[in-house]
């Protein structure tokens, strides 16, 4: 994640969340504790928690051994 203050922080946050969503769709492993602790704002942390919930929900539906990794 960039720390360049000239970059758009909202754009960076959106990009990170979109990448996490893609990993959920792939059925890939995500270190959610690390992602949550690295969040820079309360709003970002809340969105990461919601994505974590979605990862748990999609795991219930996913057929065994079907991740795209």
């Amino acid at each position, binding site marked *: *994640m960039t720390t360049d203050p000239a970059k758009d922080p909202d754009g960076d946050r959106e*990009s990170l*969340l*979109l*990448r*996490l*969503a*893609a*990993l*959920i*769709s*792939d059925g*890939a492993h*995500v*270190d959610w504790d*690390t*992602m949550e602790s*690295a969040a820079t704002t309360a709003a970002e942390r809340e*969105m990461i928690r*919601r*994505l974590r*919930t*979605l990862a*748990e*929900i*999609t*795991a*219930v*539906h*996913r*057929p065994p051994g*079907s991740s*795209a*990794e």
Partner: protein
Amino acid sequence: MEQMPPPASDPVPEAEPLSGTEISFESTHFLLQGVQRGDSQALDRLCQRYLPRLRRWATGRLPAKARGFMDTDDLVQDTLIRALRRFPDFELRHEGALQAYLRHAVFNMIREQARRVRSRPEAAELDGEERDPGPSPLEQAVGRELADRYEAAFNRLRPEDQQAIVARCEMGFSYKEVAEALKKPSPDAARMAVSRALLNLAREMHV
């Protein structure tokens, strides 16, 4: 941050297996017309495609006490066949619409089963009140409140986002199949559509 996930625009991983029951959209359209004319072979082909996925989805959603009450496999199969016969052909703009329609039909069947469990006479005789049908595997995984929030948020999404999530995250279709179902130009585009739909779903999951 130690580990950055790959960007959503990364190429779709190659290892994803294609299902042995892939049917193109045009075939689905053709088969659906066959079903509605009473063609049993067309019905068999569509059941072959959808039944295993819908059974797995229903197993994750059926309350614990409803699972022993009726044969889930039979219920899903009956629901699928009825839904395929009733699906209005003009609604089949792309296959994603059919998948979302089938999910809705099975969801309603599960709700009906839960209602039946609650109102069984033997349940009422035991305590004089309606019986809780128990948690589904999904509710066991994330809790009833979050499962309800998921469903409420899902219902607020645009149909396009709903269809992307159903196809990939709930039915487990490959990105190639999702691209075909949603009329996306490539598996990469399908992956991006599913990712954006998941992000929109997360945004809708407010209390």
